[in-house]
Structure formats: C-alpha cells, structure tokens
C-alpha cells in the first residue's frame, strides 16, 4: 500500500477550478518535488492535503495509508501523520511557542493512544531539535511566530515538523524569502528527517532548494495538471528551459489529444 494515493483530484476555490485532475502516488521513504509556475495550483494541492475546508474537492480521491483523507478534519489528518510547513506561517499573539508545540504534540499522541509527554520529557527533546535548526531558545519564550523574521518563521515550521515527526511532510515554498544560510539550515533540518518511513512533498517554484533537498521524483504542475514527471534531472532541465517549455509541450499534447 502506498503512503499517499491521489486519483483524478479536481478542486475548486470560490467556484473556480484550480486542480483539474491530479494523479500522484507517493511511497514511504520517497521525496517528491512539485514544481510549477505561480498560480499553477501547487499551494492548493498542499492545502487540500492538510484539509483546509475553503477548498472544495469536486471529484477524485485521496488515500493516506489506505484511509480516506478527504473524510478527515485538519487535526485528524495531522494526527494521522500529515504535516504542512506553511508558505506563510501565521503569527498568533498570546499563545507561547513552547506551550503550543507541547499542546500539539500531546494532542497527536492522545489521538494515537499514547501517554501525554510531560515537561520533563519534552524539554530535552525540544532542546535537541532547537539545536538542529540553530534556533535561539529565547524565541521560544515569545508568542507563536510573533515578530519573527521570515527566516525564523520558516525554521520554526521545520522545528515543528522535527518535533511532530510526521509520516508525510509537505513543504510549501519553504525556500521562498530565505537567504542562502537560512536555506542551508532549513535543508539540513529537513534532510535529517529523511527516513525510510517518511515521505516528503517539496512544493517549490525554483530549483534552488532541490540542490539541498535532492528529490527522487519531480513533477511539473501547470494550470492544475501534472504535465511531466521524472527524476531529479527534470528540475535542472526546467531551470534551464523555464516553465514556458512545459507550457508549450502541454499545448502540443492538448492539440494531439
């Protein structure tokens, strides 16, 4: 059984069809990259997988470990092991970072029938992950993402991922707005989480991140459809030729179909 199986997925947002029939299978241990121009539906796919209800699935199925993901609420999908690193992490004044992380972890543990983790067990693990992402623990005493720089917010997403240890991690444009040092730190964090049990879906506009997080598969999403799939070399080809190339190819394909 595949970890994630998307079949003929059609999604509309505010009455407009954004995804027009996506098929994608991801197995445990694999890293897939979804590339595409702005507005192609990459982020929509990421949000649908995290179960945001503003997106309406009009057709198709998504199975996660054989279970119907579309039946799950966001918190259920999260507890089953789906994690979305947000393109724009939300600032929430008044909710402390550390408190939030422990609440989230314990909510998920509870869902899985595990005991809640007390502060004594949580802290050493937490410190270890903070070090991995080279984050200042002073940030953790602050409110969730409040006043964080763009890079700090993205690192905080990966920190959350490191603590929650999902089965499927979806990174939505995690590289956007990062300088090269921050990019390296984020990529190190992500790479340290690669394992045979875990799959990753790396959504990005640029090839740059894929120099650090090397994918097993690359899919090109244009206008709500996957127009090409291939290995990591496809990303390089795209970088060289630009998205116009796939667009031209899609139109040719459309003409012959």
């Amino acid at each position, binding site marked *: 059984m595949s970890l994630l199986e998307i079949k003929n997925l059609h999604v509309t947002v505010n009455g407009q069809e954004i995804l027009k029939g996506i098929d994608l299978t991801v197995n445990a241990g694999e890293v897939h990259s979804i590339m595409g121009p702005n507005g192609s539906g990459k982020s929509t796919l990421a949000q649908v997988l*995290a*179960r*945001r*209800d*503003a997106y309406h699935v009009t057709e198709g199925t998504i199975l996660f470990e054989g279970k119907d993901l579309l039946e799950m*609420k*966001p*918190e259920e*999908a*999260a*507890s089953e092991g789906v*994690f*979305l690193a*947000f393109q724009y*992490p*939300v600032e*929430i*004044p*008044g*909710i402390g970072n550390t408190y*939030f992380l422990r*609440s*989230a*972890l314990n*909510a*998920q543990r509870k*869902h899985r029938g595990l005991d809640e983790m007390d502060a004594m067990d949580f802290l050493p693990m937490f410190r270890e992950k903070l070090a991995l992402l080279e984050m200042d623990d002073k940030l953790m005493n602050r*409110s969730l993402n409040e006043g964080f720089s763009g890079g700090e917010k993205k690192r905080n997403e990966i920190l*959350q991922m490191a603590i*929650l240890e999902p089965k499927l991690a979806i990174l939505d444009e995690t590289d956007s707005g990062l300088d090269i040092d921050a990019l390296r730190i984020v990529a190190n964090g992500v790479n340290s989480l690669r394992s045979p049990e875990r799959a990753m879906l790396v959504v990005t506009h640029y090839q740059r991140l894929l120099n650090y997080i090397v994918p097993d598969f690359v899919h090109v999403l244009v206008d709500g459809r996957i127009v090409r799939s291939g290995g990591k070399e496809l990303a390089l080809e795209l970088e060289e030729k630009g998205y116009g190339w796939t667009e031209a190819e899609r139109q040719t394909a459309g003409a012959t179909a």
Partner: protein
Amino acid sequence: METTLTAVAHGETKLQSWLENFTDFEKMAAGRSLPWLHRLRSDAFARFCETGFPTTRDEDWRFTSVAAIAKTVFRPAGAAKLTAEDVAPYRVEGAAAQIVFVNGRFAPELSHLGSLAKGLTVASLRERIESHPEEVAKHLGRYADVRRDPFCALNTAFIGDGAYVHVARGVVVEAPVYLLYLSTAEDAATVTHPRNLIVAEDESQVAVIEDYASVGGEAVALSNAVTELVAGESANVQHYLIEREHLKAYNVQTLRIQQGRSANIASHSLLLGGGLVRNNVHPVLAGEGGECLINGLFLGTGRQHLDNYMHVEHASPHCGSRQFYNGILDQQAHGVFHGRIVVHKDAQKTDAKQTNRNLLLSDDAQIDTKPQLEIYADDVKCTHGATIGQIEENALFYLRSRGISEAEARKLLLLAFAEECVERMHSTVAREHMEGLIRGHLLFMEQAPRETSGPRLVERNGLAIAGEEIG
C-alpha cells in the same frame, strides 16, 4: 406621545417606592445624626427624584436601556446568614485581608481582618462612620458625580455600608485587599447600594479586588455600587473589579478615581456575569504627572448586556491615560464601550490613548463602540481606535493543522485575546486569580450549546475604525 406620557406616569409610581425606601432607610442609617452626612444623602436623593432613571435619549445611556430597572419595585435586600463554607469558593489565596458583605451588610464572621499590616486599615464603612466620622467626612461623597449620574445619586442617598480601606503615608501593602459582595436569592426584587471608600495617602501602595457574586438561586437583584478611590501624591493603586453575578442580576458600578500629583493608578475590570451591567470608570487626573491605566475585559453570552462607560478627565498637565478594553461576545450578547476623554484647558502635554478590540463569535452578538473626545487644551496627544472581528480562520486552521482540535484551538485563541488584558495586571495574586476565572468562564462559554458548527467562522474584517488622531 401617549406611550411616553404613560411611561413617565408609570415611572413616577416607581419613584414613590424609592421614596418609601429612603424614608425607612434614613431612620436607621449609620451616622444619621451627622449633619454633613444627612445633607449628603438628602441632596443626592433630591437630585435622583429630579432626574429619575436615565433613558436611551440621554447621550450617556444611548446604548443601554435601564427601563427594566426603572419599572421594577425593589426592596432593600434583607439580612441573610451565610456560612464559611458558602464563602470558601470565593476566597483569594494570598490576600492581605478579606472583607465580606452579604446583601450589602458587613459580615464580620466571614471576614478576615486580623493582623493587618501596620498602616493598613480595612473596615466596614458603616462602623467607620460611627467610630471616625471626621476621617470619613474628608472624602466620602466629595468625588462621585451625583449631578450627572442618577445611579450615583441613588447610591449616595443610600450610603449605608461597604468597605473602607485606608493606607497610611508611605506604606506599601504587597498582597491585595479582597472585598467580596455576595447577594442571596430572595422572593422579591432586591437592591443593595454598596459604597466603598479607598484612600491611599501619599507615596503608599496597595491593590484592591472588588468581587460581586450571587449565592443560591437566581432572583432579580440590583447591585448599585459606588467606589471612591482617592490617591495621594505618588501613590500607586491597583484596582480590580470582578462582576460575576447571575444572569438575572442588574449591576451598576461606578469607580471614581481622584488622582494626586504623580499618582499611578490602574483600574482592571473583568465582566463575566450579570444580565445587565453598567461599568463606569471615571478617573480625574487632578495632579500633574499622573498616570492612569484603564484595562478591561468583558465576556458576554446568552442575552447579557455589558456596558463599559469610561470617562477620563485630564485636569492637570503632563498626565497620561491609557484605556484598553477587550470584549468577547457570543450568542445574543450586547457589549458597549463608550470612551469619553475630557482634556481641560490647563491639561497641556496630555497623552491619552484608547483602544477597544472586540471579537464577535456569533452573527447575533452586537457591540457598540463610541469614542468621545472633548479637548480644550491645544498641546495634547489623544488617540483612539476600535476593531471588531471574528476568530481568524487562518489562525484556527494553523493550530488545527498541527493536531489541536477545533474546540481547543478556539479556546486557545480566545484565551490569547483575553491574555492581552491579563498581562497588564501587576499584582501576581490578583492576576492569577483573574486568569483562573477567565479560563473557567471561556470554557463555560465554549461549552454552552450553540446552533451551528462548521464553517461559521468565515473571515470577515468587519468594521474597523482606524486610529484617528487628534491634536
């Protein structure tokens, strides 16, 4: 027109019942032989008879109708016995003193007034009037505005009992003084007029918690309380108000603050209970360099009506006032924030700020927010702003996407919104006490049955009045 006339005529018969109450009261009142006190009461009563209860035609009462109070015949609440067990749930751990009033009467057997710090006096006002009339006469009734506010006039007419707190010059009282007002259910509608006098002499420091609660069943009751808080030069006073009476209770509160030079005062209000609540906070920054923080949180549900009327008077130069009120309203609750700032001619270099933020959790909840600036000086800075919104869908989704349930995520977000007010509270004992009450109440609000669930929380910016700057 006919209905108006009927209402007036009807109103007059009710005033008749107040006259009977007053006549009975005067025969027994504490200090009735003191000419100044007799005059204070009878002048105030005369004023009340002149004006009657306010109507929504009065600008100060535009958003709050007290017709339900005006048409009710209230009897003075009778004496009632409560046990230490009844009072136990209300105790504040770590308080310097606790004084308990049951139906407006001092209950010495329930109060803890032993071994007070040197320089701190906590007593029943009634007893203090009898034992130290000249000390009380220096301040009582000198600040509360009986001309403008009929409820203040009524309270002043019925000055009987309440708390007397005095802090001597230079004395610092670390733990808060706790004042508890309990009303018990009776068959008929009852009224109490708690009257408190808090005097902090020069360079003293104290925190006071006033807590209004009901015990037993729900019956119509009016708590019409007035507190005069007098702060000397460089005094530091933190005042905390908790309103948590049952939903049939009417609660009209007035906190009148008189600030001396460089005094630093904070008023923190927490409105949880009461069916119809009017919370008046009226500081007068009378001495130069004074600072006043007016901080409040109101949480309404059901059909609660919670009105916060601020009247901040800058009467001296170089004073600062900051108002922050946050409201969370669910179901058909109605909130009001009326923020009046008056800057007198001589009050140059005034820095006055006002912010009112509101979360509406249902389509039927309502908030009226109204700034009112009257500025007669020319070198001042006054800002005000108000926002009305709903729980942010983005934030809710973010929390849920990490595994936190929708109910828990909503609770966290509401708590975070309330926390802004909690963080401004200085006294650790009071803050923790208030925080516990807020947590419990939000849980209660969230668990109350509601009609809809699901995508009710569509993002909507709602009305946002941007901070308009004047000066």
